[in-house]
C-alpha cells in the first residue's frame, strides 16, 4: 500500500489546507481516503439533495459549481480545479447540498469521509480556519510564511546564523607563516595584516595549527615565554574546520564546543579562510542601519560605487530574515534615497550654491517608494521661479550641468539611466515651478494619450532633496486642479481598464503563448501595475498627498468608498504579488541571471497559485466597479 499512500501524501502536501498539517496527520488521512472518478458532464452533487458524506479534493480535472434559481436560471458560482475542494459546507452544515457540482472535465477526486474530516477539524484548527474564513486574508500570512520557510532552517531570533553560509561571511584571506618562524615574527605578520589569527604551515605546506591573539596572551605574555621561541610551540591543535557551505551556526557550535574563537574554512578540501566570532557578530550588523552609516561616510562617487552592490546583498538577507515586501521596498527606497542624496551633496560641492533654490524629485516607482532590486532613474528638478532674466539664464545653465553630473554619478552608483529619458538631465524635466504647473494643468485639461501617460508617471512625484517646499507647493497645486476633473479621471479609468489581469475563463492563468517569455506572466505589468494604477486613481480622486500605494491606501481608509470596502484585501494582494516578485528577483540574483518580472505560474505552489488568482480576481472586481462608475465619462474615450 505504501506507494499508493505516498502518492496521496505527496499530493496533499502541496494542497491547502492539507499542506499545513504535519506528517502524522497527513498519513492518517491517507489511510482513510477513497478515490472516485467522474467522467466529464457527470453531476456529482445536486442542489437541495441530502448533505454530502464526503469532502472531495480534486486530484485531476475540474468542476463547475452553480446554483439553479427558481425560474431555472443557472448561476455559476465558481470553477474549481486541481487542488481545490468541494462539499465542505454541506458536510459540516449537515443540511442540504447548496449548489450543483458538475465535472467539466474527466475528474478524479480523493474523498475524505465526514468522520475523518471531523476528527481533523477537531485537532487541527488551521484546517477549519482555512475553510471558514474569507479566502485571501488568511492565505496571505500562510503564503508569506511558506515563502519564508524556503530560505529558513530554524526559527528564532538568531535566524541569520541559520541562513547564511560560512563561505559568504568568511571573506578574510588566510594569513599564514611557516612553523619555524619565531613568535615575534608571527606577531608582526598578524599586526601587519590586522588579523587576530595566523595559520601555521609545515615545510610541506600542510596546515598544522593556528595561533591566535589568545595564544599570544595566554601562552606567551602570561607565561613570560621568550618571543624568540618557535611559533609552533604555542599553536593550538587540532585544526577545527568547517566547510564553506556549512551554515554559520555550525561554526558557532564548533567554537563553543572547542572553546575557540577561530575556525578554518575549507572549500573543496582547500583552506580558504578563517571565520572568527567577530565575523559572526558583525553578521548581525549587516543591517540597513550600518549600511546607511557606510553611505554617510563616503565623500566621493568612487567611494559610493562598491556600496551599490552591497545593497542587493543586504536586501537578500532581509528577505531571508522574513521582512515583508512593503518593508523591503521601503528599506530599498530609503537606502536608494540616501545614495541619491549623497550624489547630490557631492554635486553641490562641485558646482557651488545654485542661483535659485531647487528640489530634486523622484517619481514612478521611486516616487512611490516601491523599488525592488532593479531600479532605473526617474527624476526631475523643480527650481524656484527666477526673478530676473539674468537669473533665469544662470539657473538654466547651472541646473543643466548639475543634472548631467548627477545622472552620471547615479549611473556609477548602480542606477541605470531611464530609457524614456525621464530624467532631470533632460531639459524638459528640469524646469522652474511655474512651468511644472503649466505641464500639470495641460495634462489634466487635455488628457490625450501622451498626457495621460505622463500624468501617471509624474503624479507620483515626491521631493527627495533640496527645497522640499517646492515639491509641496506643486502637490497642493495638483490637488487643487484635479478637483471635479471628471473627464480626466474617466480617461485614466479607461486606461486602467485596458490592462486586465491575465485570468482565463477556467480561473486559469493566461500566459504568453510564445516568445522569450513563453508560458510566463509578467507580475509587474499584470499584477502590480493594475493595483498601483487603481490606487493612484483613488488617491487623485481623494486629493491626498501620499505617493506610496500603501500610504495612499491608509490615508484613504476612511474616506474613499472602495478603499473603505476593500482596502485590506487590496493591501494583501499588493503585498503578496510584490513578495512573489521580490523572491523571484532574489532567486535570479543568486543565480546571477538578469532580473525580470516574469514567472511561470505552473511553478508556483498550489497556495501561491491560489493567492495569485485571488489577487487577480480582486483586481478584476475593482476594475468592473470602476467601469460602472465612469461609464458615462468613458464614452468616446
Amino acid at each position, binding site marked *: 500500500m505504501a506507494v499508493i499512500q505516498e502518492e496521496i501524501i505527496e499530493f496533499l502536501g502541496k494542497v491547502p489546507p492539507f499542506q499545513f498539517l504535519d506528517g502524522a496527520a497527513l498519513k492518517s488521512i491517507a489511510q482513510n481516503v477513497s478515490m*472516485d472518478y467522474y467522467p466529464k458532464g457527470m453531476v456529482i452533487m445536486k442542489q437541495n439533495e441530502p448533505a454530502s458524506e464526503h469532502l472531495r479534493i480534486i486530484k485531476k480535472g475540474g468542476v463547475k459549481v452553480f446554483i439553479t434559481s427558481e425560474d431555472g436560471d443557472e448561476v455559476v458560482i465558481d470553477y474549481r480545479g486541481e487542488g481545490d475542494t468541494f462539499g465542505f459546507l454541506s458536510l459540516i452544515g449537515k443540511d442540504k447540498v447548496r449548489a450543483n457540482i458538475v465535472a467539466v472535465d*474527466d475528474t478524479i477526486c480523493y474523498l475524505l469521509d465526514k468522520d475523518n474530516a471531523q476528527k481533523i477539524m477537531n485537532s487541527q484548527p488551521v484546517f477549519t480556519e482555512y475553510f471558514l474564513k474569507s479566502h485571501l486574508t488568511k492565505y496571505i500570512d500562510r503564503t508569506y510564511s511558506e515563502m519564508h520557510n524556503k530560505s529558513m532552517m530554524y526559527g528564532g531570533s538568531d535566524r541569520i546564523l541559520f541562513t547564511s553560509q560560512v563561505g559568504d561571511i568568511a571573506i578574510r584571506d588566510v594569513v599564514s607563516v611557516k612553523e619555524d618562524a619565531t613568535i615575534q615574527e608571527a606577531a608582526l605578520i598578524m599586526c601587519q595584516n590586522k588579523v587576530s589569527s595566523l595559520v601555521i604551515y609545515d615545510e610541506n605546506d600542510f596546515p598544522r595549527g593556528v595561533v591566535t591573539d589568545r595564544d599570544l596572551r595566554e601562552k606567551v605574555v602570561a607565561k613570560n615565554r621568550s618571543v624568540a621561541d618557535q611559533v609552533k610551540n604555542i599553536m593550538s591543535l587540532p585544526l577545527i574546520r568547517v566547510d564553506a557551505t556549512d551554515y554559520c551556526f555550525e561554526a558557532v557550535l564548533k567554537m563553543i564546543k572547542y572553546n575557540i574563537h577561530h575556525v578554518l574554512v575549507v572549500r573543496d578540501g582547500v583552506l580558504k579562510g578563517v571565520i572568527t566570532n567577530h565575523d559572526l557578530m558583525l553578521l548581525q550588523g549587516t543591517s540597513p542601519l550600518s549600511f546607511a552609516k557606510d553611505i554617510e561616510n563616503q565623500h566621493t562617487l568612487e567611494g559610493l560605487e562598491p556600496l551599490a552592490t552591497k545593497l542587493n546583498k543586504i536586501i537578500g538577507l532581509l528577505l531571508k530574515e522574513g521582512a515583508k515586501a512593503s518593508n523591503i521596498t521601503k528599506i530599498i527606497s530609503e537606502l536608494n534615497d540616501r545614495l541619491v542624496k549623497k550624489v547630490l551633496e557631492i554635486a553641490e560641492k562641485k558646482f557651488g550654491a545654485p542661483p535659485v533654490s531647487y528640489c530634486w524629485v523622484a517619481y514612478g516607482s521611486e516616487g512611490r517608494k516601491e523599488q525592488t532590486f532593479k531600479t532605473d532613474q526617474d527624476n526631475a528638478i523643480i527650481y524656484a521661479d527666477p526673478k530676473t532674466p539674468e537669473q533665469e539664464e544662470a539657473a538654466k545653465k547651472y541646473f543643466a550641468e548639475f543634472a548631467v553630473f548627477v545622472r552620471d554619478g547615479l549611473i556609477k552608483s548602480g542606477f541605470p539611466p531611464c530609457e524614456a529619458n525621464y530624467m532631470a538631465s533632460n531639459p524638459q524635466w528640469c524646469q522652474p515651478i511655474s512651468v511644472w504647473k503649466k505641464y500639470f494643468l495641460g495634462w489634466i485639461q487635455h488628457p490625450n494619450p501622451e498626457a495621460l501617460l505622463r500624468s501617471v508617471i509624474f503624479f507620483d512625484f515626491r521631493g527627495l532633496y533640496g527645497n522640499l517646499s517646492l515639491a509641496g507647493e506643486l502637490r497642493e497645486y495638483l490637488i487643487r486642479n484635479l478637483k471635479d476633473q471628471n473627464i480626466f479621471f474617466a480617461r485614466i479609468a479607461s486606461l486602467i481598464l485596458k490592462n486586465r489581469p491575465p485570468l482565463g475563463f477556467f480561473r486559469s492563468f493566461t500566459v504568453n503563448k510564445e516568445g522569450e517569455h513563453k508560458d510566463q506572466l509578467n507580475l509587474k505589468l499584470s499584477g502590480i501595475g493594475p493595483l498601483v494604477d487603481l490606487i493612484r486613481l483613488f488617491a487623485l480622486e481623494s486629493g491626498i498627498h501620499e505617493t506610496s500605494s500603501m500610504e495612499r491606501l491608509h490615508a484613504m481608509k476612511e474616506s474613499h468608498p472602495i478603499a473603505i470596502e476593500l482596502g485590506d484585501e487590496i493591501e494583501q494582494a499588493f503585498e503578496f504579488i510584490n513578495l512573489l516578485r521580490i523572491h523571484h528577483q532574489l532567486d535570479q540574483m543568486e543565480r546571477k541571471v538578469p532580473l525580470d518580472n516574469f514567472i511561470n505560474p505552473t511553478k508556483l505552489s498550489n497556495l501561491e497559485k491560489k493567492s495569485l488568482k485571488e489577487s487577480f480576481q480582486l483586481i478584476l472586481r475593482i476594475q468592473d466597479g470602476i467601469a460602472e462608475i465612469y461609464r458615462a465619462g468613458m464614452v468616446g474615450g
Partner: protein
Amino acid sequence: MFSLFRKSSGGLLAASGIDMSMPLDSAPYVVMDTELTGLDFRKDSIVSVGALRMTGTRIELGRSFYEVVRPSTELTSKSIVIHEITHSETEQKPGIEGIMESFLRFCEGAVIVGHFISLDLRFLAKEMKRIGYGSLKNPAVDTCVLHEWMSQNRGDLSSKYFNDAESKDLFALAKKFQVPVHGAHNALMDAYVTAQLFQRFINMLITLGVRTLRDLLRIGKP
C-alpha cells in the same frame, strides 16, 4: 437491450449472499491481481496477492490487501525479472495457506473484479483445493471481457476507446482510458490500475443501460 437484462433468471441472491439487484454504482467490489511464478497451470503457483475494495466507483484506498507468499513451486528466473520478487524475499514469508483466511475475509460480500481474472481464479482455486478450502463463492467479472462487450455495444460512446485491433492487456487499456500508471509493478499496484479502469467502465456501462449486478455479471463473466 433492456429487455435482455430484465429477462434474466436466477434468485435474488447469488451463492455468496450478494444482492444481485444492487445498482452497479453502489455495489461492493474487490479488485484483485496475483503474481505467479509462471503461466503453466501445473508447474507454477502464486507469489503475491493484491486487492482493493471498491464501493460503486469509489476505490477505498485505505482498505487494501497485499501479501507476498512463499510459492508452493519454485521461483523461476523469468518470473523474478517480471515481478522483482526474489527468493530471499519469499523465504521468510508464509505459504499461501497462511494468508488465505484473511484474503477470503477481505473478499466477503463483494464481487471479484480483475483483468484476465480467470487466470488468477484458476490458480487461486488450485491453491485452495491443495490446502483444503472449498471453492471461491464470490461472483466475478473480467474487465477485459467488459471492454470487449462495450466495444460491441458501444452505442453513443466514443469510438476512440474501442478499436478491435488494439492490445487488450491491462496497461494498453490503462493508457487508452487515461489511467495514470506509475510506481512499482506488483499485484497491488496492478489491482489499483485495474480498479481505476473499472471505475471508468462502471460509468460507461451505466450509460449503456447496464444497471444491476445481475446485468454486470451477465456481460462480464470471465
